[in-house]
C-alpha cells in the first residue's frame, strides 16, 4: 500500500505546503519529532533548490515499505538545466551560486538514503528516504 | 547449499545425495512421530532445552513430516527451510545457546542410526546410503538453523549496542542550569550525533545555560573529533547555551592547532574542574542578568 502526495513547486509558498505535507505523513508514520524536523527541513531545502535552479518542479512524498520496515520517501523532480557533475555537487562546500539552498550534501546528511539522478538538459530527480 | 540473510535457499543435491536422503527418509518417515517424542523426552531433561523442544501435537507432527517429505521427495524445500529459519531466529531471541540446540542434532543422529541399522541390516548397500542420508539431512538442518541463529544474534547485538551507546553519553545536571557531559571512549560521527541530540533535548528540558563537555576520557582526539565537538558546541549556541570543552590534553591541543584548527571555536578550558568553575560563573552572570531585568520591570 502506498500513500503518496504530490505538491507542485512554483513559488515560495509551495515550499511550506510541501514540507507541511511531508510532516503530516511523517506524523502518520509515527516518526519521533527529531525525524519530523529532519524530514521537513530536507523537503524545504529540496524545494528551494527546485525554485532556484529550475524555476519549477514537484515534490512527492510517499510511504515505502520494505523488509518489515516503513519509511518516508521524498522525490524532488524538476525539468531544469540539470547538474553537469553530480559528484562535484555532492562534495561538501560546493555551491554553484551564492543564492539560497545549502546544497545536496546537507540534505544527504539529514536522510538515511539519498540518490541524485541528473542529466544536463533533462532535469534532476532527487530521491531521499527516512526509515522509521 | 547457500544460506543468506533472511531465508535459506534450496540445497543443490546431486542424484547420489538425493538417493541417500530418500533411503534415509523411507525409514525415518515410518518412525517420525516416535523419534520426535524421544527427542522431546531427552530435551525435557536438559535445563535449557525444556521450553523449546516439545513433542508437538498430532497436527504439528503431521505438518512437519509432510514438509520434510515435500522437500526430500518432491524437491520443494521452501516450507521446511522456512520452518528451520524461524526456529533459528526464535532460539536466538530467547537466549538459547548454540551448544544447546546443536545437542538436539546430535541426539537425532544418535537415534536415527540404530533405527536404520534395524531396518536395513539385511541390505548393507542401502544401509550405507541411508546413513549417509542422515548426515546430509542433519547438516542441512544445522546450516539453516545455525545461519538464522547467527543472523538473529547479530541483530540483537546491534540493538544492544544502540542501547549502550545511548547509556554511554549521560548528561548530568550539576546544578540547575549547569550540565556536565563526561565523554568516555571513542567519538565517531554517529556517537557525536547522538550526543548532540541528547544534549539539545536536555538544554530544553533543564533550561540549561552552561554546559561542560569533558573529553578527558576520549582517547583519540583528532581533527575529525574536534570538528564533531565544534558542531555540538555550535548547536547548543542556537539554544542560547554556552558549552565549554574541558579535558583536552596539551599534546592533543598542540596537534590540533598545528592542523590549523581554531580552538577558540571549541571553547576549551583546562580540566573538568576548570570547566565547572567557568560554567558556574557563566550561569551566575545569566542569573544576575535575569534578576536585574526582573527588578527593572518592577
Amino acid at each position, binding site marked *: 500500500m502506498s500513500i503518496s502526495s504530490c505538491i507542485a513547486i512554483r513559488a515560495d509558498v509551495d515550499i511550506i505546503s510541501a514540507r507541511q505535507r511531508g510532516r503530516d505523513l511523517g506524523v502518520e508514520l509515527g516518526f519521533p519529532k527529531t525525524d519530523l524536523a529532519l524530514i521537513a527541513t530536507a523537503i524545504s531545502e529540496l524545494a528551494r533548490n527546485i525554485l532556484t535552479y529550475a524555476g519549477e518542479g514537484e515534490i512527492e512524498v510517499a510511504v515505502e515499505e520494505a523488509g518489515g520496515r516503513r519509511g518516508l520517501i521524498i522525490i524532488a523532480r524538476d525539468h531544469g538545466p540539470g547538474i553537469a557533475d553530480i559528484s562535484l555537487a555532492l562534495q561538501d562546500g560546493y555551491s554553484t551560486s551564492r543564492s*539560497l539552498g*545549502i546544497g545536496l550534501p*546537507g540534505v544527504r546528511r539529514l536522510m538515511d538514503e539519498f540518490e541524485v539522478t541528473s542529466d544536463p538538459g533533462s532535469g534532476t530527480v532527487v530521491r531521499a528516504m527516512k526509515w522509521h | 547449499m547457500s544460506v543468506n540473510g533472511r531465508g535459506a535457499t534450496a540445497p543443490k543435491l546431486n542424484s547420489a545425495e538425493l538417493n541417500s536422503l530418500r533411503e534415509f527418509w523411507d525409514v525415518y518417515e515410518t518412525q517420525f512421530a516416535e523419534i520426535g517424542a524421544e527427542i522431546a523426552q531427552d530435551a525435557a531433561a536438559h535445563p535449557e532445552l525444556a521450553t523449546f523442544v516439545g513433542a508437538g501435537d498430532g497436527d504439528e507432527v503431521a505438518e512437519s513430516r509432510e514438509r520434510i517429505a515435500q522437500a526430500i521427495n518432491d524437491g520443494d524445500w521452501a516450507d521446511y527451510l522456512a520452518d528451520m529459519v524461524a526456529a533459528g531466529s526464535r532460539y536466538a531471541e530467547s537466549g538459547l545457546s548454540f551448544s544447546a540446540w546443536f545437542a538436539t542434532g546430535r541426539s537425532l543422529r544418535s537415534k536415527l542410526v540404530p533405527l536404520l541399522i534395524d531396518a536395513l541390516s539385511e541390505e548393507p548397500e542401502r544401509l550405507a546410503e541411508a546413513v549417509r542420508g542422515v548426515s546430509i539431512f542433519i547438516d542441512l538442518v544445522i546450516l539453516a538453523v545455525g545461519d538464522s541463529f547467527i543472523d538473529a544474534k547479530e541483530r540483537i547485538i546491534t540493538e544492544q549496542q544502540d542501547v549502550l551507546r545511548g547509556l554511554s553519553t549521560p548528561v548530568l545536571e550539576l546544578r540547575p542550569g549547569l550540565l556536565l557531559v563526561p565523554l568516555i571512549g571513542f567519538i565517531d560521527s554517529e556517537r557525536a550525533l547522538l550526543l548532540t541530540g541528547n544534549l*539539545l533535548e536536555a538544554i530544553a528540558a533543564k533550561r540549561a*545555560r552552561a554546559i561542560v563537555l569533558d573529553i578527558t576520557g576520549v582517547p583519540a582526539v583528532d581533527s575529525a573529533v574536534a570538528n564533531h565537538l565544534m558542531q555540538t558546541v555550535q548547536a547548543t549556541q542556537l539554544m542560547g547555551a554556552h558549552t565549554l570543552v574541558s579535558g583536552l590534553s596539551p599534546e592533543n591541543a598542540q596537534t590540533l592547532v598545528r592542523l590549523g584548527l581554531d580552538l577558540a571555536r571549541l571553547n576549551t578550558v583546562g580540566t573538568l574542574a576548570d570547566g565547572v568553575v567557568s560554567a558556574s560563573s557563566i550561569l551566575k552572570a545569566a542569573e544576575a542578568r535575569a534578576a536585574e531585568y526582573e527588578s527593572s520591570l518592577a
Partner: protein
Amino acid sequence: MAIPILKQGSTLIVSLQAEPTDAEFVALQRELTERVTQTRAKGVVVDVTSLDVLDSFATRTLREIAQTVTLCGARAAIVGVQPEVAFAMAQLGLSLEGTLTALDLEDGLALLHALPQVTSVT
C-alpha cells in the same frame, strides 16, 4: 498577512507563530528595520518557539535581520529555537553565529537589557 511586532519598553518583540513564507520573512525584515528607526528601539527579540523548521533561508534571514538591526543602532536576539530544529540545523551546517541567542523570550529580554546602551548611528 503581516507579522505582528510588539513593543515592550525600548524593545521590539516579534513572535513568529505560523511558518512564514519567504515573502513574509523579507517583509518582516523591512518592517523591523523601519520600526527600529521610528521608535528608536534598543533591542529586538525574534521568538521562533513555534517554528518547526528553520531552513537555510530562514537562518540567513534571521542573521540578516540581526545585522541590519545592529546597523540601526540596536541589538537583536533570536530566541526559542527548539531542540529538534537546532539538531536539524546542526546537521545541515546552518548556524546563527554572530547573532545573540537565548533559550526563550524571558532570557532574551534579560540578555538585551544587560547590554551597554548603543548610540544610534545617524
